[in-house]
């Protein structure tokens, strides 16, 4: 199929992009890597009046590791972050999760910030951002602001981003000394959407587990430390609290059972990885 007609704007400057967003609002859709948007356009599931291509904007292709965070600009491809030198040292959770995103071919094109903006409930990058308590930098004609990951994802494919805002960058906190990180995912085939994805962070005193693919957005919960007698019941309660749905590829019961079983494995792995 072919897209419905749209106006195409390839912004040459951030000002130009923000002007388009201010003028068009919800009638404009931002095009970054296009790995989600272009199929949606082709299937006419998305019919924006304006497609705003941001991939030529200067200065947004940077990965900066400083002050305890990995800051990833809006036009950084997933593959570029995946190949970032020493990523496993700076943030093992990112290094573990990135290879699970789609296929290498789609990671060559798709962007990190694009996946965050898209907010697919089973996507890995929103899950990791929530697990690490990262931040999203938003910019519009009205100014710049930062949003905390935990509040940013509001539902299926929906975020706190306003229609006139561009995600300029996202920041992933770097690894803390003494903390262990682990990521596990289960899907039907290589590259398929996650049925359940788990991201765990465990240090000496605390543990937390973020789950993707089950609720309408990533859900983070603090849990007893692995080794504690309370962990099993706490995981049971966490799994039971999910508003999971049956679909063709997994029942709600199966998803909740995986939250318990896979969640436990992920927590144990993170605990074992404590530096």
């Amino acid at each position, binding site marked *: 199929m072919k897209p419905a007609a749209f106006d195409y704007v390839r912004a040459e400057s951030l000002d130009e992009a923000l002007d388009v967003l201010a003028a068009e609002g919800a009638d404009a859709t931002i095009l970054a890597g296009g790995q989600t948007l272009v199929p949606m356009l082709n299937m006419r599931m998305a019919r924006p009046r304006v497609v705003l291509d941001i991939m030529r904007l200067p200065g947004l292709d940077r990965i900066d590791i400083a002050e305890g965070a990995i800051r990833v600009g809006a036009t950084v491809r997933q593959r570029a972050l995946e190949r970032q030198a020493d990523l496993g040292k700076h943030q093992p959770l990112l290094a573990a999760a990135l290879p699970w995103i789609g296929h290498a071919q789609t990671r060559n094109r798709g962007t990190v910030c694009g996946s965050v903006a898209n907010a697919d409930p089973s996507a890995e990058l929103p899950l990791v951002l929530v697990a690490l308590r990262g931040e999203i930098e938003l910019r519009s004609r009205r100014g710049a602001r930062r949003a905390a990951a935990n509040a940013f994802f509001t539902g299926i494919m929906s975020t706190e981003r306003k229609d006139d805002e561009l995600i300029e960058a996202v920041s992933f906190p770097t690894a803390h000394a003494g903390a262990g990180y682990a990521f596990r995912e289960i899907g*039907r085939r290589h590259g398929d959407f996650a049925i359940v994805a788990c991201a765990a962070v465990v240090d000496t005193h605390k543990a937390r587990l973020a789950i993707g693919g089950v609720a309408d957005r990533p859900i983070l919960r603090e849990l007893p430390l692995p080794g504690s007698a309370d962990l099993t019941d706490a995981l049971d309660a966490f799994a039971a609290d999910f*508003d999971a749905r049956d679909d063709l*590829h997994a029942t709600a019961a*199966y998803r909740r059972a995986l939250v318990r079983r896979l969640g436990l494995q992920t927590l144990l792995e993170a605990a074992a990885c404590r530096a």
Partner: protein
Amino acid sequence: SAHWAPGTIDSDLGQTIRETVFWTPPELTAPNEADEINSSLCHGFIFDFCGVEVDRLSGAVRVDRYVTMHDCGRVLHPAMVAGQITGGFAQALGAALFEEYAYAPDGAFLSGTFADYLVPTSMEVPEPVILQRESPSPLTPLGTKGVGEGNCMSTPVCIANAIADAMSLTSLDLPATPTKLAALIHGRQNEPRVKS
């Protein structure tokens, strides 16, 4: 279209050499009184065995090694024979583990696109170990038999039997999906209490 039907070429043009031959093996006789016929002059043979692992946590199946032995009579082109067998094997693995015409209780068709009707990719299909045994057919001019369809029949059964052996099952409906197998492994009593 004259190349299909040389007989339609105008005789004034002068024809290329052509020859028409009919050959019927004597074993393929006319229908009997009960209107039965032998529809196949000869049959190829297959013997498959495989080992699988079922992940206790997720119910996912991994084929560790799949061995398929074929007797398709005299092999004329080994690479084509291997290609036929591998293709049949890949399709059949899809039938065993992934593909499903799924319907909702109200009859709505759930697997209407390849997003939901799962076909295995190269990452899901292991390389089968293909063995050959040539016993030429006495009934065909070259001793050849047929090859290609067989694994569609043998492979789903072989994989299902391996899973059943692993999990001590007496029956199993395909596709053997993780949800199905996990429910069999862990049972309903292990499910956490469901929020009402």
